[in-house]
């Protein structure tokens, strides 16, 4: 059965469009990082004369209850999200890769243990696990990074393990084993190449989850230090002023977080369709 391919829009082919989108998204992420570190001072500068003012030409996103510029706070909050997200997603992805490789190379016993570990981590609601970890680690930014990092690998481990198994059970891998190659050789020469793409895409697609969970933890009060302008903290602060009509405190930071997540997600999806053109229908 052949899927209907929508006709190409304009004269640009899909590959070029994907590449352009990737470039733009990467530029946006970099821009947020730079603007975020640039805005860090402004995010803490209070000016009590203009408290809770609505968005205007001087303050595009308005000001909060201490007269701090919300745009600056949002930018440095997003930078914080990106830093936490990158670190946590990278650690998670590496854990997933190591476990998936161990399950493939180590034989059925290791495989069973890995499968059981995945089940164990998926047995609890993710947020409850995060809350317990953040609590056990005593809160703070480091605790959030660790908590987010050690809870996001199960899904990717499953994907990578499934992929690795497919390769190991394929004819050419079987032939290699029968020719006397070791498991390690098969893993290195045949499996690694197949996993590289999935690993990269999986790593980037972990980002949004990590960012959103960091924001959720901070929102609940168990995340980053309340003095740091994280998006979760901004939204938690906004709750006190929402009934007074300060909509810009809640709407704009959340919208920016949503857009950032979409952009990072887009990078992952576009990379996936570049690396594996058949998967873009998913």
């Amino acid at each position, binding site marked *: 059965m052949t899927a209907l391919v929508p006709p190409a829009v304009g004269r640009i082919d899909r590959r070029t469009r994907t590449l352009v989108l990737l470039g733009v998204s990467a530029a946006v992420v970099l821009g947020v990082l730079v603007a975020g570190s640039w805005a860090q001072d402004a995010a803490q500068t209070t000016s009590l004369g203009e408290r809770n003012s609505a968005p205007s030409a001087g303050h595009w996103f308005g000001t909060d209850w201490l007269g701090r510029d919300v745009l600056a706070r949002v930018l440095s909050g997003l930078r914080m999200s990106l830093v936490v997200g990158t670190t946590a997603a990278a650690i998670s992805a590496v854990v997933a890769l190591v476990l998936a490789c161990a399950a493939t190379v180590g034989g059925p016993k290791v495989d069973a243990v890995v499968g059981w570990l995945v089940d*164990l981590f998926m*047995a609890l*609601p993710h947020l409850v696990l995060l809350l317990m970890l953040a609590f056990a680690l005593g809160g703070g930014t480091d605790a959030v990074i660790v908590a987010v990092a050690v809870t996001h690998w199960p899904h990717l481990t499953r994907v990578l393990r499934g992929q690795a198994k497919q390769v190991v059970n394929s004819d050419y891998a079987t032939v290699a084993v029968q020719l006397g190659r070791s498991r390690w050789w098969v893993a290195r020469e045949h499996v690694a190449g197949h996993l590289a793409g999935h690993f990269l895409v999986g790593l980037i697609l972990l980002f949004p989850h990590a960012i959103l969970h960091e924001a959720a933890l901070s929102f609940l009060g168990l995340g980053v230090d309340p003095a740091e302008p994280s998006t979760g903290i901004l939204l938690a602060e906004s709750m006190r002023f929402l009934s007074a009509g300060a909509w810009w405190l809640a709407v704009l930071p959340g919208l920016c977080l949503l857009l950032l997540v979409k952009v990072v997600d887009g990078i992952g999806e576009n990379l996936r369709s570049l690396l594996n053109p058949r998967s873009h229908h998913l």
Partner: protein
Amino acid sequence: MLTAGSAARPVVAAVVARTARLVLLLTAVAVASFVLMVNSPVDPVAAYVGADVASLGPAQRALIAQRWGLDDPAHERFLSWFGNLLGGDFGFSLTFNRPVLEVIGDKFLASLALMALAWLLSGVLGFGLGLVAGVRRGWFADRAITWLSYALASAPTFWVGLLLLYVFAVSLNWAPVCCAVPIGVPADEVGLGDRLAHLALPAITLSVVGIAPVVLHTRQAVVDALASDHVAFARAQGERGVGLVLHRVVRNAAAPALLLQFGSLGELFGGSVLAEQVFSYPGLGAATTTAALGQDVPLLLGIALFTTVLVFAGNLVGDRVHALLDPRSRLVDLRGTR
């Protein structure tokens, strides 16, 4: 193939296997969370005493520690805690000043109304939208629905809640701003209408979280079903329009949606933690936050075990319903459990 005569034994074996799995899982969760809690930097005595901790002398502190067995080796403490669990004693919640099981039972009842409403809402709405998107694939309706689902999938739950709160409770004044019942009204005088009014916004918030996966998977299942041979055959026989979708597609598309809905109880609970925080709804989700912030270890451990059972039960029911709807998935059972 599974025949009627031999059906009884595999079922018993499956039930035993599942129960053993649950017990093993609960034990593992208990051990893991206990280890986490024991190694946490939080001082249980300070957490218990609260603000008066400064006036606590070292002798008194030692007395409390000895009374609670804080100086015993970790495995002894675990065994005594675990023994109590088996006897149905989950300990005493310090923040709520009541036994943990009572707190969980009470709060879960409040959460259950919220979660059930949100679960139904996201299931029905998600399935409907997914059906429309799949049938109208490539058209405007499909694009709009798919785009909306992707947007919702990336939206923070609590932000959606804040938006709804601002629009419907603050600006339009259609819904109350907080809590499960009106403030200052005795519990027995609160009518059903009041309760529903307080439930509406949190439930919508919570359902928004779960809707995207249902829509997208249903859409894909509908697309697959419409491209299948049996639909082509039905078309060749002259079936068209709504009848074709209702008779040939809905059952195929319902299987993944139901599996997903039952499998997402954990996500649903996670969402309820956030939604209840936004709307100050006094359910189990809010209790989880309170327990973590108030360093209430017994309650946190109790909630961890309770939600494990919840997620497990959801997956189990989901598997059974899936097997009922899709006979192909039953064949897997015969090859033995994983």
